């Protein structure tokens, strides 16, 4: 089995309705957004992101989905800055170009169209977003898209833990758009708003960065672990964040929840937080999936 090394996260960019730059992100952190749930409501993200894709050619932008615009913008501002020919780009998207799909199905099923707009159709394909990026930048990198609905967080963990063992650099991108389609399911009520991130994961040669530690089978196993006991900064999803904050355990708890709300891919943002906020020292990143706790240590 290959060695489990440290990796660094660099060239980070996050975009939602409240954040365009790293300064926006840091200011929200200084306000306490990622540690204080009482200010979440007044800082809630929305479905409109001003000036998204402002650097794109207008004629092309008019033909692109929100997902594609967001992906191109966030890679351009982040991981694309130091793109090398051999870098693999992987887009994680829970719901893909869902608003485009929604429009097409409506055209066919409700409006009885016999044809649909060709632009609309080729935009409905999951991979289009990264495809547009390669076209805009004239790059030829290996690109893949992974999409698993509400379980895309698990897909990310599986991908990350295995891809890290290849000991190669790669680029992570996440994006999801807003769609009324997601309100058609009567039983699921989720706050899903557009949010995008990109970063480069690079091999670290000096023992700083992040690496996977363990998957704990219960909360007690996690709490009993020496790494948990000896680490002050703990990054968790919303539910565990709220639980642990009330627990009285004397640590600093953070969550990415206000950045992404109910988007299942919070872990993709959470793992980059210590790097983006430059939180020195030791941190733990925890993702809870089906009562198992996937744990990464970060040393900066």
């Amino acid at each position, binding site marked *: 089995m290959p060695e489990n090394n440290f990796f660094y996260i660099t060239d980070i960019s996050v975009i939602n309705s409240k954040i365009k730059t790293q300064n926006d992100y840091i200011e929200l952190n200084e306000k306490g957004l990622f540690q204080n749930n009482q200010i979440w409501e007044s800082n809630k993200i929305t479905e409109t992101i001003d000036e998204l894709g402002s650097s794109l050619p207008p004629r092309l932008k008019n033909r692109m989905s929100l997902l594609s615009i967001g992906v191109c913008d966030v890679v351009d501002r982040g991981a694309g800055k130091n793109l090398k020919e051999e870098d693999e780009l992987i887009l994680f998207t829970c*719901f893909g170009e869902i608003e485009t799909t929604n429009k097409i199905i409506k055209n066919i099923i409700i409006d009885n169209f016999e*044809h649909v707009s*060709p632009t609309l159709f080729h935009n409905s394909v999951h991979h289009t977003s990264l495809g547009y990026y390669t076209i805009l930048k004239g790059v030829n990198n290996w690109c893949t*898209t992974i999409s698993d609905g509400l379980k895309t967080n698990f897909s990310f963990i599986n991908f990350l833990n295995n891809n890290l063992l*290849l000991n190669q650099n790669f680029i992570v991108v996440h994006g999801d758009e807003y769609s009324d389609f*997601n309100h058609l399911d009567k039983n699921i009520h989720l706050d899903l708003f557009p949010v995008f991130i990109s970063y480069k994961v690079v091999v670290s040669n000096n023992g700083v960065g992040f690496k996977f530690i363990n998957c704990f089978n219960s909360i007690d196993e996690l709490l009993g672990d020496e790494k948990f006991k000896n680490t002050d900064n703990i990054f968790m999803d919303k539910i565990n964040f709220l639980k642990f904050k009330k627990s009285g355990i004397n640590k600093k708890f953070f969550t990415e929840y206000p950045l992404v709300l109910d988007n299942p891919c919070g872990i993709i943002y959470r793992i980059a937080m210590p790097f983006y906020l430059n939180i020195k020292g030791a941190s733990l990143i925890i993702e809870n999936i089906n009562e198992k706790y996937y744990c990464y240590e970060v040393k900066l």
Partner: protein
Amino acid sequence: MKKVFISSYSSISALGIGSKESSYNLKSDKDFIYYPEKSDKYKLPFFKVEVPDYKNVINKCSNISLRLLSLIEEYWLKLAPIPLFIATSTGGIRETEDNFTDLINKKCDYPLFGKHYLNCISDDIKNKYKDKINNFFTISTACSSAAQALLKAFLYLKNGIIDKAIVIGVDSLSLTTMIGFDSLKLVSHSRSIPLSLERDGLSLGEGGGILVLETEPLDEPFCEILSAKSTSDGFHISSPEPEGKQQAHCIIKAVTSAGIDLNDIDYINAHGTGTLINDEVEMKVIKNLFPQGKTVTSTKTFIGHTLGASAIIELSLVIDMLKDDIIYQKMGKNTPMDKNYIPDKTVNKKIKYFIKNSFGFGGNNVCLVLKKINNPDKINA
């Protein structure tokens, strides 16, 4: 670095369910294309698949995947628990269309999040096989999805990260897909004959393919995957770059990485969709890289373009063909684009090294290089 072998496989397509039926029908003169009835909403010929539904499984992609797993269950259960990679471009779109009117009118309680998005397939598989399957993730890169999933699984196996994997490529047709492709003016209104001068577009197909990959096979394997590479055109969303520079670069990288020479390649199983542009660019690339000639065919002649499932279904059929050292071809009265490359009828050919090309929207290119392993007595499901 480890070696990666294909130790079991099967497919479901218009040719049949499982390798035995598919192999039998590959040899027949029968055409398995479906011509729609007047009452069908979609009017153009396509390659249809019928599979019975499993209990409580409503997605066609899931039903195809479960059927594939059952066809070779006797083999892969010996390896369980086993990582599962899935490739698809449509997921549950078909079933969403069936329920859409009631959803809009709030007349049904359809589990959209559970049945529309791509994880519906892995969820249905996990429900049946539980801890026998460790599902990894679902890759969706349009028509190159299955090849990309194979590439990922291959890399993890080659580097010793895992020692076995199941890779499933599956797609079912929906009105969205069929009408969408027709709107792009890519669909043949008669019947697609890829790589022919008379080609006028693709014919859509559906189905699924399954491969079991191992580094130390339990049983004698069928093929070794020597390498897999991917590039992006960086040119256009739905058309290939006219000179095929990145397709060529992808093939060269793959062959070089396989440790062989371009001259060593005996056969190319083309992406070969039957569209004017795809086949033109792909053949231009092939002729530039292999100026002395090479045997090139497209399996889409028999099963249509099965989109995200194509690379794995086609590889399954190629493995079946190569067992008998025969390359099946169906040109009818049509003329191959270049007879120095494309046979006009079925040919006998001993093959050791072969290539599988797969190209997708967004200019996504994948090339796999494989080596046949001689095992004439072994029969697959």
